[in-house]
């Protein structure tokens, strides 16, 4: 069985600081990490590899040359192969363009039974790329998977809803997006780190190499444009004491919280 896992290198948003004047992210000193949900995606692929015979896991990513580090980490966790799609022409890709580019890499690999993506990335938080890849490849998708079972060619997944679950069945080939609840990702092994950096374990490809029309990717191939970014309005912590009877206090509080869209 061939499993492809899509991985995105993202800035660690937990450490993010925003330039208060320009309203942009201060990227300097911000650690780059494998997107957390993508780790769950990779873990699930590796779990299947651990439990079944003849499973090959290929990690793919699109990004600047430095994104290679994320793939080394994927190898150190146990992926068999890794491919990085990198080119200046890809810069500025929105989710649709990204999915187009990654689909080209997947077609280039050719043989696959399962594709795993993380549910969403912590930077863009769109959850678009998985379903968009599935659409480009014309295969079914199951998103936000919290539990997974494989029976021959059939996949049975527990897909999370707001207030419960769907149990969804589909045949391979198929794309799944992993929720955090799906598993507990392993760490890269120390041995894997030293092996991952050796030689040319990561295959670097350009859009040309994977038959990807550069006009369909990058800024040119992106239907959306970011007009501006700005810091969220800072709410000052001014204490407001709510007076009156308990019922009045309760009513006032809920009114305030509703106004602020908190409840």
């Amino acid at each position: 069985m061939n499993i492809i896992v899509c991985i995105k290198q993202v800035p660690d948003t937990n450490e993010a600081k925003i330039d208060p004047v320009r309203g942009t992210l201060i990227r300097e000193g911000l650690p780059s990490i494998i997107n957390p949900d993508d780790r769950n995606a990779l873990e699930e692929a590796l779990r299947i590899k651990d439990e079944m015979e003849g499973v090959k896991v290929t990690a793919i990513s699109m990004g600047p040359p430095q994104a290679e580090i994320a793939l080394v980490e994927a190898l150190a966790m146990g992926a068999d192969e890794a491919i990085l799609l990198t080119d200046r022409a890809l810069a500025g890709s929105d989710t649709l363009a990204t999915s187009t580019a990654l689909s080209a890499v997947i077609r280039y690999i050719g043989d696959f039974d399962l594709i795993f993506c993380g549910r969403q990335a912590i930077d863009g938080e769109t959850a678009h790329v998985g379903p968009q890849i599935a659409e480009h490849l014309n295969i079914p998708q199951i998103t936000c998977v919290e539990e997974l079972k494989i029976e021959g060619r059939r996949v049975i997944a527990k897909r999370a809803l707001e207030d419960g679950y769907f149990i969804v069945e589909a045949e391979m080939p198929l794309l799944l997006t992993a929720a955090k609840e799906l598993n507990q990702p392993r760490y890269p092994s120390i041995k894997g780190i030293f092996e991952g950096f050796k030689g040319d374990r990561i295959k670097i490809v350009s859009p040309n190499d994977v038959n990807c029309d550069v006009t369909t990717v990058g800024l040119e191939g992106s239907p959306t444009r970011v007009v501006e970014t700005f810091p969220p309005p800072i709410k000052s912590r001014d204490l407001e004491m709510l007076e009156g009877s308990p019922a009045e206090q309760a009513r006032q509080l809920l009114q305030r919280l509703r106004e602020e869209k908190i409840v």
Partner: protein
Amino acid sequence: MAVKENILAHKGVWVFAEQREGNLLNVGLELLGEGRKIADKLGVELTAVLLGHRIEALAGRLIKYGADRVIYAEHELLATYTTDAYTGVICELINERKPEIMLLGATSTGRDLAPRISARIHTGLTADCTKLDLDLENRRLIQTLPTFGDNLMATIITPNHRPQMATVRPGVMERAPYDEKREGIIEKIKPELSQEHIRARVVKTIKGGKAQVKLEEAKIIVSGGRGVKGPEGFKLIKELAEKLGGVVGASRAAVDEGWIDKAHLVGQTGKTVRPDLYIACGISGAIQHLAGMKESKCIVAINKDKNAPIFKIADYGIVGDLYEIIPALISELDNTKNN
């Protein structure tokens, strides 16, 4: 310009009115409220797209909530959401009728469906918008959304592709008032669908059964401290937390007294949390506790002692007995829900 012509060929605002088990989700009504404003400014029709089985009655309600037209796709295979069936039906409609804007709720369904549609139609999509504006001159939807772990807001447009698609965060937009007298067109269509179209099949629906949300990931936390006075009080705390869709936290004092398990501990020796709402009940606000929750977006303090340090970092303060305030909050929540 060719692009311009292409854009002008698209007219109308569409809203996906999601139903589950024959009930409309609130977010669909909220989108109608917002969609109504946008459609009026553009001078176009507002259309609700409803997919399901034997739910005619819902179509009428969508008119009353502001839609000019409802396209109701009726099929037994549309009763429950599946990616394949819904994507197919909606994409055919879009290709046929060419709306300029399509809004969906950022629900588990909307976020599964919207990207699939956008890829098939080849148009731009934004995720989880919290604000929509209009650039009337260019007929552009100005979409604003939080990004980078809520550290940054981004404004995004889809200049040259139509429809402009967005998923919108539930609970953010105002729904339009229900207008009994409103009239509109209900178009019922019967798409051709068969089981083979649906490659990922929903074989079972499970209600509830969600694992307890982790404290660190909870959006709402109701916490109790020494002022809760005993394990009984935590039942009250829990009731409020559940009503708000949140989880229960606790201060060191309450954990040490054995009123609640250590897993709920917030603070220096427990979990560090950053929820949207933190309600501290009977918690004085020792520095150990503050260290674990002071980054919460909104802090509500309920305490008998008006000098309690917790009030120093709170946004809203209530001086009073939590045994009176919490029941009042619970009944207030019940009241508004019933209306």
